[in-house]
């Protein structure tokens, strides 16, 4: 490992040391940084792209890819840094300005106005319809109706139309964010060859993708972001995957290994939660797994692989289109979070803003679930509530010095509040934690790992999605990896080293027995 990391490090003395681009750089961005409040999304990102090149922009979840793309395309203003287009320094104040400068993006969410028809969408962006239709045909969409309402078209079609519109603008630099997600394979092939042809014709492309296979086929170089910083720049060659994975993970490989105190016994007995063939288009495509009492089941996936939908369905926020959910052998269907809570499932959402009563006190936040039922609408037993709340505050070591409104707490303490709310009364039977450690400090993270193990030892079943791979061996008993709305790998957490998880999350284990192991997730 160490030797490999050194090898990679020699290549990352900075963007200046990158392999010489094929031609003069069309884009040269350096020192770009951007904060959102206390969160630093980008700290020193740089990227150079030359004419004739397709450059992959890679990074783990939260590495800053989306922020970087938004800045490069004028949708977001950077705090610092400079951007040069064709040698001239530019200030991209809006997407329209970026477009005029020859830089055209295709975002993950289609930028077509859903309530306008395709033709009006072209008019809105002053795109000539002739070249648009040419590119749409080239991309494999036979005859395109200009009078079709954009919102009525399937996501895949919309994304390809978005690309066709971008190509019709004859951009110098095309920025494609997860262009092939949600596309069927035949369209993926068309898209890849059209994009490659663009580069070969002297244009430049920035390509963001979670799919290694496509990057290997399409790209000339890969620029790698970690924690908002550009950490490496690799030419695409056989074996580059290993280097890329390592650069993406970086120093995290040296994180401490599994916690020594793994108290809970090997989970056994009948599953407490049984999920079978859960489906909800377009993200969930038949997902199955079991979760036993006292078990912490890790869930690992890149963004948008169906994990959000899975947690929302289990939490009662969304209804599945197909599939079964059984709790202790009884089939369940949740129409409202109250139903899920009654069945013993409690959800801590990935975005704290969804769970926090930010302008109310810690006490009111912690006591909320106890007051949810109409039965509890009457007088509050204030002393009993105060006792229960202070027990939770003590157990989770919530720092309540910032009295008054919960939004004045630090991020870590806010997260403790959204978790602690479910422990103020009787604990849930199944605890659904969606990325509970995202964006919080190390100390709080450790406390949360300990709490999760503690709960498991009390017999609570925990489903634990995390975007931080080192947490898996530290906290979980088993782990499943999602890709494209399915379980593609399942393994004991002790074997779940990061490179393996990362490869599976990038869909690289498919066809190598990963699917067999995935089947084992739901015996």
């Amino acid at each position, binding site marked *: 490992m160490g030797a490999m990391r050194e090898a990679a490090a020699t290549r990352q003395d900075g963007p200046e040391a990158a392999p010489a681009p094929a031609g003069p750089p069309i884009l040269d961005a350096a020192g770009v940084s951007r904060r959102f409040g206390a969160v630093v999304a980008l700290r020193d990102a740089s990227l150079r792209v030359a004419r004739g090149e397709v450059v992959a922009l890679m990074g783990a979840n939260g590495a800053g890819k989306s922020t970087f793309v938004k800045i490069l395309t004028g*949708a977001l203003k950077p705090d610092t840094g400079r951007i040069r287009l064709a040698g001239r320094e530019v200030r991209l104040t*809006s*997407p*329209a300005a970026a*477009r005029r400068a020859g830089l055209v*993006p295709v*975002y993950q*969410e*289609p*930028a*077509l*106005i*859903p*309530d*306008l028809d395709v033709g*009006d*969408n072209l*008019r*809105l*962006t002053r795109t000539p319809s002739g070249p648009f239709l040419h590119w749409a045909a080239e991309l*494999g*969409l*036979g*005859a*395109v*109706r200009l*009078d*079709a*309402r954009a*919102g009525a*078209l*399937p996501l*895949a*079609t919309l994304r*390809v139309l978005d690309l066709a519109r971008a190509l019709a603008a004859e951009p110098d630099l095309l920025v494609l964010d997860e262009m092939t997600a*949600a*596309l*069927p394979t*035949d*369209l993926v092939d068309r898209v890849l060859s059209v994009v490659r042809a663009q580069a070969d014709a002297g244009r430049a492309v920035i390509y963001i993708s979670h799919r290694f296979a496509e990057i290997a086929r399409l790209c000339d170089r890969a620029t790698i972001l970690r924690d908002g910083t550009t950490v490496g720049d690799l030419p695409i060659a056989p074996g580059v995957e290993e280097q890329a994975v390592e650069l993406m993970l970086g120093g995290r490989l040296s994180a401490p290994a599994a916690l020594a105190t793994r108290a809970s016994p090997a989970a056994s007995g009948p599953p407490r939660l049984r999920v079978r063939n859960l489906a909800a288009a*377009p993200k969930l495509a038949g997902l199955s797994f079991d979760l036993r009492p006292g078990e912490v089941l890790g869930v690992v996936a890149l963004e948008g692989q169906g994990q959000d939908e899975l947690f929302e369905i289990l939490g009662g926020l969304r*209804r599945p289109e197909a599939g079964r959910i059984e709790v202790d052998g009884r089939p369940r269907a949740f129409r409202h979070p109250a139903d899920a809570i009654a069945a013993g499932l409690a959800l801590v959402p990935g975005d704290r803003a969804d769970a926090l009563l930010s302008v109310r006190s810690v006490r009111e936040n912690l006591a909320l679930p106890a007051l949810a039922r109409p039965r509890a609408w009457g007088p509050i037993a204030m002393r009993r509530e105060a006792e229960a709340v202070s027990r939770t505050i003590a157990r989770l070591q919530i720092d309540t010095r910032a009295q008054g409104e919960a939004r004045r707490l630090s991020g870590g303490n806010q997260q403790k509040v959204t978790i602690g709310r479910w422990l103020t009364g009787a604990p849930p039977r199944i605890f659904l934690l969606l990325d509970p450690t995202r964006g919080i400090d190390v100390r709080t993270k450790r406390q949360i790992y300990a709490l999760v193990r503690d709960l498991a030892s009390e017999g609570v079943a925990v489903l634990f999605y995390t975007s931080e791979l080192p947490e898996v061996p530290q906290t979980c008993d088993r782990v499943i990896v999602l890709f494209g709305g399915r379980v593609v790998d399942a393994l004991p957490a002790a074997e779940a080293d990061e490179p393996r998880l990362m490869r599976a999350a990038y869909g690289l284990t498919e066809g190598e027995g990963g699917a067999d192991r995935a089947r084992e997730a739901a015996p």
Partner: protein
Amino acid sequence: MTARPVAARPSVAIVAARHGWTLGLAVLLALLLALTKIIQPAFGATGLEALVRAALPFAFATAAMTVVVIAGGIDLSVASMMAVAGVTGAVLMQNAGDGAGALLAVGAVLLVGAAMGATNGLLIVGTRLPDIVVTLAMLFVWEGVALLILRAPGGAATPWLRELVVGPLVIPGLPPAATALVPQALLVLAVILAAIWLPLRRSRLGLGIYAVGSDETAAFRSGVSIGATKVAAYTLAGVLAALGGLSVTLATGIGEPIPGPYLLASVAAVVLGGVALGGGRGGLLGPLLAVFILRVVRLDLTLLAVDPNVTTIIEGTIMAAVVMAGGLLAMRERRS
């Protein structure tokens, strides 16, 4: 996932799907008019003329509300702005005399309307408060302004302008019988709204209004200036509300500072007309048909000798039901 359903649907189906609601409204209106003829066999040109004249302010109020709602907002101050425009017009016309001065007065009223609408829009964009809060406050402000201009009903309307919205259409060279059934007010309404709406609908500003209401992020990424588009939509609503206020003054011959029942009626017509309250969807024709439907319902109830106050209740209940059904539909859509 099928990748190419774009070509799958024939054009007729698309037209029917997109305009089905409007077509349904047109059929409903025709049925209601036929019903009116059955209830009151004497119903003819005069009845139709009175109906359109009464509907005129409602139609302009609804047009104003439609533009704002399509842009994703709502304008609760529509009726108050009409009152301001109405009394301003009455005062100016009283002093303007008969000739070109009256036209100047009309121009001034439209400018006042644009200024009021622009104020609403600028306040919304500037304060970043929700549309509904700002226009609620401005509802009271414009109401007060109207009362300051005229404390009690007063002023006057220029007679030849009043003639414009009274009586059947007369086209020189055609026998009067040929156009007897077309009220002049309808022509005025159609010409004014067509002159504003048709060029707008296809312009980049019009597309921008739809885009902002439909998906603000996508609109921004498509290069639409969000703030300017909103201000433009509210300004246009102010002009349309001013036309509505003028039409009240022309119909009654006097300026009335207390706002009429146009706010709720316009919201109901907008919802019934197939414009989603969330924005981005619908056109002007549907809400206008809805205005006439609601007016014909009122007329029929009156013809059936229902107590006018009961008619008000029924009308109010229909409007509330329409808004509630609209809410339920929107909720179902969000869920799917």
